[in-house]
Structures are given as C-alpha cells and as structure tokens.
C-alpha cells in the first residue's frame, strides 16, 4: 500500500487524487483499539483489564501520552502494541488488541511485519555500533532493499524527517556512537522512520536528554504526528501537556482516566488523576 502511494507521488492531478485516497485509507488503518487487555509476568498481574468497560481507542495522527508513577504499567502497555513483551519469559497477555482491523495477537500475525509497521524508540538511545548510514539502512535492508541508490534515498529522507540530516550529512560513514545523546536519539527516530512504520511508540524518549535536545525532539514529534500515529510514555507532565492530544493516566496497572489532554490536566474527573497531575503524589 505504502509503496503504491510512493510510486504515485510525482504525478498528475488524477494520481494525486489516488494518493490522497491512499493516505486517507492508511490513516484509517492505524488507530489502535484495546479491549480488556490483561498482562501477567508469571503470577504478577501487571496490566489489569485495560479497556474493559469500553474499548480504549488510540486515534490515528494523534499524539497519545501515557503518564503515571513508576511501575504503573505504562511502559509494559506500550510494548503490547509491537509485541516486545514476547521477548520476556513467562509473560502472558489476554484480551484483544487491534491495529486497524488486525488483531495483533492472532496466531497468523507476522510479528516482524507488525514491528515494521509499529516502530519503537527507547528510553536510552540505542544506536547500533555501526556507521550512521548502516544504522538507518538496517531496517530497509532487513526487508530486502539492496540497491544503493534506493538505500541512499531512504537514508537521506529519514534523516531529514528526523531533523538530523544537516548535522550528519558529511559523516554518514562514521560510527553512530560518536554522536551526542540528543543526536543519537534523533538517529534512533530516523532509524525507525526508515522502516516506514504507521505507528511510532516512544518509551520516555527524552528522559536521558538535556532540555535543549528534549525541545528538539518535541518539535520533531509535533511534526511527525502529521504523518504518523504516536504513542508516548512520559514521566514529564509538562511534556505531555506540550505535545499530546490525549492522555491516559495509569495507576497500578489500570487506566484511571483517559481523555483529551486539556481535560486531564485542567478538569480531571477522577480524584486520583487530580492528585497526580497537581503533584500531590508520584
């Protein structure tokens, strides 16, 4: 689908029309809906019936923030969407998690394809110990892109999207580990974008960065939201108010409240949410 869209990028009005249709249909396919999700680490009940009253919907082309005190399950929950929890032994998940029409915990789900479509940026920048170019080219190469020209194009486009191109264009062949923390995190975002995902999950992407780098990344997130659905876990409530459209407040493995960000921070319905956002605990 995505490739079809790209092919018709440069074209007449008619193809542009088709392209817009593509974009719209794509947009439709990327919302996430969670229906009564439970997660257990062995005997520990880490997520308790998320979306059990009514399915929790994460909208397309929106930034959705997960806030809550440490250990409340927000990072665990975000890892449900790209099945990263599969890597953890004794982790059991029940319920229905749909991305578009696809139940991602269905037996027939191709996990690698899922992870291609649902990218993830981690708390600690984790560029691979290889060159900047190879970092970005890692995902396309995984999906079989071999032509140098095509790879060059993807690398340049991804780095530009992540607002890193101008800083690294002269040293693409140098090790990615030589970049600063903020640059490394933008590199990781670019690396995720190179896989051409539809959803981007961010697990506290700025908690290891200084305020200026954090600002750059937040600007970036605002820009990316036009094209992608973004889910972000954050400890920083100001950050949630700055960048997110909707916010979910987590406590002890449950979603206490999920609403428009403005609503959550100005007029929360639940007493616990109010206590948290006004800084009485957490």
């Amino acid at each position, binding site marked *: 689908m995505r490739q079809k869209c790209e092919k018709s990028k440069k074209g007449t009005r008619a193809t542009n029309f088709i392209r817009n249709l593509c974009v719209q249909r794509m947009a439709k396919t990327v919302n996430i809906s969670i229906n009564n999700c439970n997660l257990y680490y062995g005997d520990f009940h880490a997520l308790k019936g998320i979306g059990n009253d009514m399915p929790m919907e994460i909208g397309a082309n929106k930034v959705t923030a997960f806030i809550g005190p440490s250990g409340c399950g927000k990072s665990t929950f975000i890892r449900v969407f790209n099945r990263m929890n599969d890597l953890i032994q004794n982790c059991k998940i029940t319920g229905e998690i749909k991305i578009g029409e696809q139940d991602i915990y269905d037996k027939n789900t191709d996990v*690698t394809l*899922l992870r291609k479509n649902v990218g993830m940026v981690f708390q600690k920048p984790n560029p691979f110990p290889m060159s900047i170019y190879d970092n970005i080219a890692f995902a396309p190469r995984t999906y079989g892109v071999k032509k140098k020209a095509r790879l060059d194009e993807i690398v340049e486009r991804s780095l530009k999207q992540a607002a890193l191109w101008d800083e690294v264009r002269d040293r693409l062949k140098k090790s990615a580990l030589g970049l600063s923390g903020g640059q490394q995190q933008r590199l990781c975002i670019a690396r*995720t974008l190179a896989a051409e995902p539809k959803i981007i999950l961010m697990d506290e992407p700025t908690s290891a960065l200084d305020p200026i780098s954090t600002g750059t990344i937040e600007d970036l997130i605002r820009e990316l939201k036009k094209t992608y659905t973004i889910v972000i876990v954050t400890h920083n409530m100001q950050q949630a108010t700055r960048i997110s459209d909707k916010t979910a407040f987590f406590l002890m493995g449950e979603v206490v409240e999920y609403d428009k960000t403005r609503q959550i921070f100005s007029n929360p319905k639940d007493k616990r949410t109010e206590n948290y956002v006004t800084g009485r605990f957490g």
Partner: protein
Amino acid sequence: MRKIIDTTLFALTWIFAAITLLVLLFIVAHIVINGVPHLDARLFEFAFTTENVSMMPALVSTIFMVVLTLLIALPLGIFTSIYLVEYVKKGNKFVMLIRSATEMLAGIPSIVYGLFGMLMFGQFFGFGWSLIAGVLTLGIMILPVIIRTTEEALKSVSDGYREGGYALGAGKLRVVFRIVLPSAVPGILAGVILAIGRIIGESAALIFTAGTMPQIPETLGHSARTLSVHMWVLSSEAHHTGEAYATAVVLLLLILVVNTAAAVVAKFFITK
C-alpha cells in the same frame, strides 16, 4: 595510625606488583640472554638434521597447528556460545549440563587430553601420531576457553541493541549475526588469543598425539612437532640447550606478533 596502615598497604601493593614484574622481566631476560647468541640463520633452514637442529619445520608445524585447530574449534565454540546465550531459555537443564561440562573440561590437565587423544584419535580412529590427531585433541582442549570467553562477550552486549533490532522487525538470526556478534568481536578475540597461547604453549598433549617428527608435515597424517615440543626434545637430549633457548626466543616473538595482530583487529572492530 590510619595513615600508617594506608602507607603500609600502599607499599605492600607496590612491592608485590614490582616482584611480579621483576619475575617476568627476569624470565624474558634469561631467555633472551641465553637464546639470542644461539640464533643462527642455519636454525631456519628447511631441513632438520642431527648436525643442524633447525627449528624451521617446527615453526611451520606450529603455524599449521594453530590455524587448523582454530578452524575446527572456533566455529564449534562460537556457535555453541550463541546457542547458549541467545537461544536457550533461562534455567534449561541441558544448558546447565553444557556449562558444567565446559567448566570441567577447562580444569583437566593437558596430559589427560594427550592420553585421550592418543587412545581416541591415534588408536581408535587409526590416525597414529599425526597432525590431525594433534589438531583434534587441541581443538577439544581449547573449546572451553573459546566458549567461556565468547559467552561473556555476547552477554556483555547491551540488551538495548537486541531490543532495537527486534523493534525494527528484524528476526533473531539477523539481530544475532548483524548486531550482537559484531559487537562481541573484541571479546571473542581475547578468547582467541588465550586459545592461541594454549596451542603454542602446549607440549604434553602433543607429544602423545602429534608425535615429535622434525619435518614439515605434507599431509594431515604426518607426524609434526611444534616449537614447544621441539624445545622439549632439544632440552631432554641435553646436547642442544642453546638451540632450545633460541627456540624459546622465537616462541616469545611469535606470541608477541599474535597479540599485536589481535589488538589491531580488535581496534578495527571497535572504531567501526
């Protein structure tokens, strides 16, 4: 009072470090002083005769021995470690068995390996005293070294790399071979250096398996002596102590070359 204890401790650590260094220097100096005068171009002639105990055949055999043994033990060891670290679930009984087996293998004296190699490869398989019997025996001997160091190297690769790889949709194979293994190369090389050291330094196990023929082996079935075995033969015959020292000098140089080469390779991988 505290000050006195501090100073004494510092002095003690300094003295012990100095003793260690002195012992090492003494050994090297002793070998060099006794060996260098006997280093002679004739000792590097290809043919070994009773008049001229050339070390050239032994030098070539040593290189054969190192290369062939690594050829067998490296793939076995590295793949075993990858299996142990990347594929097996924690608390698996089979793995605990492999681990304790490798630990036990590491503690066995080399002469026992020699005896085993002689009975197993020399007699049971009928290889006799041959390069191949020596190679197989040493291969088993260095396997634990390679497995342990590779395991440690793989474990020390940050899980962030693995997560990052999986999150991009890469499969296990790609994550292990494109990300984890290249990052572990410096650690694995440290193990390879240790292994090469053991191969070059081994004599007991080889006397039983590869024999002591002072010739350049033309096939895997020929007997061959390495430099260490050459030294042992020369010194036990008592006529050629000087040449034995000269051989020791060459051995030292060989180890130096191997270590430097490995350091260069490791550096290449780190900066990359």
